[in-house]
């Protein structure tokens, strides 16, 4: 049984359709990367999955249970198991780094504050922010904010992690660190859906790669297949472009 199964998903902002007929099935412990040109709907797909944009059509099944996006209970169950790192980090500006990471486990999951704080400090140390616990987001660089956002998502202990461009604001050294963390999580069997423009990263970390274009998945396969032997014209075109850019 797939961990996450998306079937025929349609979504729109107001009247503008953004996703049409997206189907994707992700096994437990699998890392699926979403690539594709800007505006193709990658972030939107993640937003639909976590219930920030209700789908127009289609189904999402989590571990065999269909998600009802109009039902608060169903949404809560979904959000209990999925975490997302947003493209713009979306940190809470009125909270320092430590509180950004601990607020949800303490206030929403009602876990013991001391235990959560110890865990958060360890997580933040792991992403190289052990000395920034008391800093506010406005006092951090983009890359630092991004790492806080990653730690915040991990503190929720999700089964499924959605990552939107988490390496875009990082220098190569930090990309390696984040990669290490992600590899570690993969080793622990976490399921991941990763949006990335970083082809080295995608190749290294993904079990499969899905290419999106104009709101649909046009080709899906192993990294080797997508990058070295794409089948569709659209994929050939896109891969040629990113290879040229690198």
């Amino acid at each position, binding site marked *: 049984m797939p961990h996450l199964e998306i079937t025929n998903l349609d979504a729109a902002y107001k009247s503008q359709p953004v996703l049409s007929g997206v189907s994707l099935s992700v096994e437990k412990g699998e890392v699926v990367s979403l690539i594709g040109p800007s505006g193709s709907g990658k972030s939107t797909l993640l*937003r639909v999955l*976590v*219930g920030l944009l209700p789908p127009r059509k289609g189904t999402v099944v989590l571990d065999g249970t269909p998600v009802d996006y109009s039902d608060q209970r169903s949404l809560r169950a979904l959000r209990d198991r999925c975490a997302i790192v*947003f493209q713009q980090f*979306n940190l*809470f500006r009125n909270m320092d780094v430590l509180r950004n990471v601990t607020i*949800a486990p303490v206030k929403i999951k009602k876990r013991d504050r001391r235990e959560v704080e110890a865990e958060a400090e360890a997580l933040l140390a792991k992403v190289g922010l052990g000395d920034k616990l008391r800093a506010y987001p*406005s006092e951090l660089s983009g890359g630092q904010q991004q790492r806080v956002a990653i730690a915040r998502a991990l503190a929720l202990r999700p089964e499924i992690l959605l990552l939107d461009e988490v390496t875009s604001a990082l220098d190569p050294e930090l990309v390696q660190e984040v990669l290490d963390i992600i590899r570690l999580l993969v080793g622990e069997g976490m399921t991941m859906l990763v949006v990335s423009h970083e082809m080295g990263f995608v190749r290294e970390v993904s079990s499969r790669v899905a290419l999106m274009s104009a709101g649909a998945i046009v080709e899906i396969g192993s990294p080797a297949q997508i990058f070295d032997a794409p089948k569709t014209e659209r994929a050939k075109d896109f891969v040629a472009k990113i290879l040229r850019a690198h």
Partner: protein
Amino acid sequence: MQYTFQFGQITRYLPDLLAGALISLEIAFVCFWGALLIGLLGAMALHFGGVWTRRVARAYVACFTNTPGLVQIYFIYFALPEFGILFSSLQAVIIGITLNAGGYLTLILKSGFLSVHRNELDAAEVMGMSRLQLVRYIIVPHIARVLFPPISNKFILMVLGTAVAGVFGVEDLMGRTINANAESFRAIELLSVTACLYVAMTILATLVLAAVSLLCFGRRRSSI
């Protein structure tokens, strides 16, 4: 005009006036917190409420921001007893000022709700925060920081606005001034002293609010 200033004649009223000033401050303080609570509930109703909740909130704001505060207190004090609802003058004044300020604060706080960053709300929602948690952990801290100046302004206006209490025989600064004047007929001296006391209260309030702002947000002045 032939007028001899005789401040000497009113010095004996000074302790009385000072005690009145304290009462004025107390009235303003109580009304302010009440109004802030109403404003928060009103803004939540306007922001999250269904059709009817929103209508009720809008009607409340319309009623209390489109009529004079004095009329509102008169209504509470003199008209409600006709329906068997009786308040002392102090109660009527406090309720009137609170409801009036609550209407304005609803509007001020609503703008605060609208200015919260969409991104933060998304993140909070995806973490599973309830509406109330959203208000408590994200919206209120944002409002407290961003709307501190207009809310403080409202408080200072409310301190001055408590003077209407005097009209209803409350022993606030204005009420005591009116009484002292009836006894001594030294209107110019009395009102000058009273005016100075109001200025002093305003300055005091401004200083206290500035200190609060510095204490709470000093570190993050640049973070908006």
